[in-house]
């Protein structure tokens, strides 16, 4: 009698050579974090897409839900004072 063993799904994030942040590029199945990292290297950096890889078990990611969108995000729309729009940032700290 065999039991179905579930191979976990991992989300893959890659940072490009000129990038500052890791971008979500896709997902893959692997038996563990080390193998997930290697498969991410094999599947998602074949064309020199990046110099840094993060893999995270999809099950470890907590996501906001569609039905919460109204209470989560609508209240921000009428609070312009939260944006520092009147400040002029010098070029050297433009990426803050």
């Amino acid at each position, binding site marked *: 009698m065999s039991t179905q063993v579930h*191979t976990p799904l991992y989300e893959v994030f890659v940072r490009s050579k000129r990038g500052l942040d890791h971008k979500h590029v896709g997902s*893959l*199945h*692997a*038996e563990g974090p*080390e*193998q997930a990292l*290697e*498969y991410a*290297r*094999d*599947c998602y950096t*074949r064309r020199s897409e990046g110099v840094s890889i993060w893999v995270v078990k999809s099950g470890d990611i907590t996501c906001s839900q569609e039905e919460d969108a109204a209470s989560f995000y609508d209240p921000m729309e009428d609070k312009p004072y939260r944006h520092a729009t009147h400040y002029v940032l010098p070029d050297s700290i433009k990426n803050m």
Partner: protein
Amino acid sequence: MNDTESKIGEYTLQFSIDLGDDSLMLGQRLTEWCRNAPMLEEDLAISNVALDFLGRANMYYEYAVELAKTTDGDFRNQSVDDIAYLRDSRAYRNLLIFEMPIGDFAYTMTRQLIVDLFNVEYFALLSGSCDLDLAAIAAKTLKESKYHLRRSHEWTLRLGDGTEESHLRMQNAVDELWGYTPELFEMTEAELGLLPAGISVDRAQLFDTWDARISQILSEATLDHPPGDWQVTGGRAGIHTEHHGHLLSELQYLQRAYPGLNW
């Protein structure tokens, strides 16, 4: 060009062909996993490994074409494609382990472990070759080989110390392939001739390190180290196994059916 220089040139040409043939055969074998691998991610991964070997073969043959311009030998006026696709079985000089079939996944990974452990040592030394072209190819190869070894090492542990079935398949693979490993450490006339010039590497000296490392991995993977009471040789003399002809029939089909075809 004086006698010694031309001898070095001949030997270097033969050496490049040998290394190219090794790479081409294993690269071709690994492509047999493309669309056939146990899962999608592995299909991509192992195809990448195949491409690394094919790319290497291309570099060696390109260098051979350069070298052949100044010799009177077999490869004069041949293109990379001629060298890769149009020789008869006895004219290829790859070591036998590279032409063995892919077998099951355990067999493929066992052969990779054997080869990757060797390559990591060998190309580290060849990176210091006095022939700058060979040194450059070796340096690139070393980086690829380190990654290949990571994979084959992990698969050996996963399958060896795995289920009853995977363990059995791994042990069978180790036992079947072991007799093909001594050939890795044999030196050809060309390689011996190139040693004083600092161009080639002494393969025999790598055996102890290779054996120690593979023994450790096999033991970790709960696999037995075979007694080593049989061995096969002949690749460098063009005497191949019964598998070579079948491999060539696929490798050469396109160029022989459509001569001169290119992209």
